[in-house]
């Protein structure tokens, strides 16, 4: 009941290798089937994202013995030379494999520390494998534990709460003023890549209405169509600034396009309803003095970059707390694993003793001709009762006492002591 993990990620492999070793849904299903059909693994789960491809499994034999076979399989499956692939692959066994997965689910192993998407990807990978019958009791428990770790880290720490990009920092700041954005309106000045990124974040946060204003009408139409917004004619400030709560400016201009008097006029028309302005243009698109107007909040690229840096530091300071949750769940999983293994060992011992008892009685009772059939049955019954008593009590204690399971560190040693290879469960 060991666990093996073979994989690669953004730290060990360049993107050229990662893209060759990634799995789509069909490949995931086929790989899991082949690994089990070839007897390399009994339980399998493939986790494939843009930054990692990992195969988790429960091998029939020792995890260390199956790892080379798994590496070879990956090399063949993706037609990548094994010497190239081996440079990027990492292998983890048992405790380290569990710890690695829990760290992945917590977002501690992500390229962007604490990113939230990975938990959804782990959940999806588990759902897929489970639906296709590729997982068993060990991987089910392992991945349920991983999902719990991810959830706890997200609710009990602030690892994933702070925005880490200029665009997301701007959107989060808007939420500091307005709360949820699903009843809010946004105006985007400019239709370039930066505007697109911000619009994408605004859409993710459920912005109710989007207006696009750009010098080139075609590009504005394109962006508006892409995100379901409306186009406003360039320079129609009096109407354009009347309704939005958030304005994102990212246009190429030598002079600020949003001057103080334009915004002041708009604020008067809006009844001083709060306005959040994100100036992502360099040179700046919004006159800095606009920030002095009542109920107007202006943040430029430098302000947002500084916030991102502060957030990065804040996220890093949360790592020990997240790691603590990971460690707690690793111990919990290993304790469960040991309990299952110990109970299995006791069952194997019981089977062995029953067999021993049968041959023992046969050989010892042979000379005792004077015993009647009733006496023989009585002696057999007594021996059964004694063996049950010897094994039943420890088995019950193993099921009930966590501390005892923790103390028994090496189940393998116990197995070796009492059972021959043939008899091991």
């Amino acid at each position: 009941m060991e666990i093996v993990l073979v994989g690669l990620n953004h730290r060990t492999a360049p993107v050229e290798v990662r893209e060759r070793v990634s799995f789509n849904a069909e490949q995931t299903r086929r790989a899991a089937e082949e690994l089990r059909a070839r007897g390399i693994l009994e339980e399998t789960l493939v986790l494939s994202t843009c930054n990692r491809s990992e195969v988790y499994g429960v091998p029939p034999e020792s995890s260390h013995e199956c790892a080379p076979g798994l590496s070879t399989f990956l090399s063949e499956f993706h037609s990548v030379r094994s010497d190239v692939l081996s440079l990027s692959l990492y292998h983890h066994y048992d405790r380290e494999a569990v710890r690695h997965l829990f760290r992945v689910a917590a977002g501690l192993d992500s390229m962007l520390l604490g990113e939230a998407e990975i938990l959804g990807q782990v959940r999806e990978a588990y759902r897929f494998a489970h639906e296709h019958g590729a997982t068993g009791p060990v991987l089910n428990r392992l991945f349920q534990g991983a999902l719990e770790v991810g959830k706890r880290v997200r609710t009990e720490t602030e690892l994933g709460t702070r925005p880490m990009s200029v665009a997301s920092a701007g959107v989060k700041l808007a939420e500091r003023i307005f709360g949820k954005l699903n009843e809010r309106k946004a105006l985007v000045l400019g239709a370039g890549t930066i505007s697109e990124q911000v619009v994408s974040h605004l859409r993710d946060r459920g912005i109710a209405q989007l207006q696009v204003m750009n010098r080139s009408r075609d590009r504005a139409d394109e962006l508006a169509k892409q995100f379901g917004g409306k186009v406003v004619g360039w320079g129609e400030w009096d109407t354009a600034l009347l309704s939005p709560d958030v304005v994102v400016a990212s246009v190429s201009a030598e002079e600020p396009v949003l001057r103080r008097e334009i915004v002041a006029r708009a604020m008067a028309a809006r009844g001083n309803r709060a306005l959040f302005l994100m100036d992502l243009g360099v040179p700046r698109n919004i006159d800095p003095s606009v920030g002095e107007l009542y109920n107007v909040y202006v943040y430029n690229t430098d302000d947002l970059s500084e916030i991102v840096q502060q957030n990065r530091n804040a996220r890093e300071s949360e790592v020990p707390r997240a790691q603590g949750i990971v460690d707690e769940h690793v111990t919990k999983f290993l304790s469960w694993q040991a309990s299952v293994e110990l109970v299995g060992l006791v069952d194997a011992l019981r089977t062995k003793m029953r067999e021993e008892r049968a041959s023992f009685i046969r050989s010892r009772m042979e000379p005792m001709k004077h015993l009647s059939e009733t006496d023989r049955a009585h002696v057999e019954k007594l021996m059964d009762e004694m063996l049950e008593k010897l094994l039943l009590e420890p088995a019950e204690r193993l099921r009930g006492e966590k501390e005892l399971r923790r103390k028994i560190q090496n189940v393998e040693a116990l197995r070796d002591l009492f059972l021959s290879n043939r008899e091991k469960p």
Partner: protein
Amino acid sequence: MNHLFPILTALAYLLSFGMYARFLGTGNKLTGRLGTLFLGLGLIAHYFALLERSRGLHTVPYHDLYGSMSLFGWLLALTYLGLELYHRQRSVGAFVLPFILVFFLAADLAPADRLSPPAAHGATFAFHVTLSILAYAAFALAFVLSLIFLGEERLLRSHKLGNMVWRLPPLELLERMSQSSVLVGLVSIAIGTALGFVTVDRLEGQHSYFDLKYVITLLLLVLYTVYFFLARTTAWRGARASKLCVFNFLIVVLNFTVVGFFLSHSHRYF
């Protein structure tokens, strides 16, 4: 006198404050929920502490200054809890609990005043006093929320966010919470004042209709009504409305202290 309920109350409020402060500091949702739970337990224990105090002194909780302060603390906690549950926002708890604790402890540690019973009594008078204290508690809450608004707004405008701003409620939510609180206060003070006049009327000449306390209370009613409409509909929304709310509460404090103690003929405390 049995000290079990006062001790339990102080303990529950302290734990609640600790949990809310931790929630504000770390963002851990569990600690926020525990803060609410302990506040609820504190409210129950506080209720029994008030009941016990009244039974011990054979009078109503608002008979003396300290009992009135304790009742004020209880109503403040109750109003806050209602507001927290209605707006689903816990980050303000750390700012409100110290006020509740101070009022409870100051009231409980002080000895009871031996005062003659007031001329007025009965259900109408009891509702008049309780609703007036509830109104002051709601205005106190609006005051705290407005101060938080002003602090957060200043941080957002100066771009000095630090760790705190990410955990505080959004500005518009703070405004809505403050307005909800003022609405509770307005309704309470309007009914409470009306019941007060009914009580005076029943006393048939024992009290004058002209008392400075009445004037200031009616002024408060007007000021908070003005705040309520300005904050929702005009160019005053935002920091200006919050400043008006802070100013209004200063009048409340004036009404409670200088007017209540020295200039009113018919009111002891509230």
